[in-house]
């Protein structure tokens, strides 16, 4: 039974990592990365590492998405110097 839950958590982590890379828009990627953080925390808990799980939750649930979205906002607001070719 403990093996089953480890396999479920591992597969969820692998799937969400793949999705995070495949999502090319940074705003949507921030959403997937926050899900990846939660799933990683669950994996760490089932691998009997609650300390690392806490660490991952603290960082991954709010701080990293906030940093990413603030960067997106700053970069988007900046006018493009080079016009894309028509």
């Amino acid at each position, binding site marked *: *039974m403990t093996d089953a839950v480890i396999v479920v958590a591992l597969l969820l982590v692998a799937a969400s990592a793949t999705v995070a890379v495949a999502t090319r828009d940074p705003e949507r990627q921030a959403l997937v990365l926050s899900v990846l953080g939660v799933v990683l925390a669950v994996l760490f808990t089932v691998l009997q590492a609650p300390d690392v799980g806490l660490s991952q939750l603290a960082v991954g*649930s*709010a701080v990293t998405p906030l940093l990413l979205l603030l960067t997106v906002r700053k970069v988007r607001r900046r006018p493009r110097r080079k016009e894309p070719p028509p």
Partner: protein
Amino acid sequence: MNGWILAAALVLAGGVGATLWGVASGPLRRRVIAQNLTTALACPALLLLAQGYDRPSYVDVALVLALLGPVGTLVFARLLADELTGDPPRAWGATWAVAGLGTVVVAILCAVAAPGRATAKLLVTGVLLIGGNVVASRALAGGFGGVRRG
């Protein structure tokens, strides 16, 4: 062998698997809702795991998730507000269903645990989880944009 861990595995495989699908595809409004529901489903799973491993100290992880998960959703609601106002996400059915699951899990665990500090921590986690997720859904469904328009 251990029903608690089996229940947690089912919640993870069914619930979090589905929300992962939701966050991976579709329009932005569906993705933010799915992100919020991931938190709301992972937290009861962590509580069930703490009970299954017979380690009350693992509840701390669920407590931090119940606190910071909705905060993360509020971050998205705040900084993606411009994109969400035109097409506000509404998924009250799913939100209340997941909140109900959280309530049931917390109630069962409180009934099983001996009354004391552990029960108090469980109750705080449950209140934060359900309150936080309902407020976060409300914020996504136009909590910011609605006021600005009016």
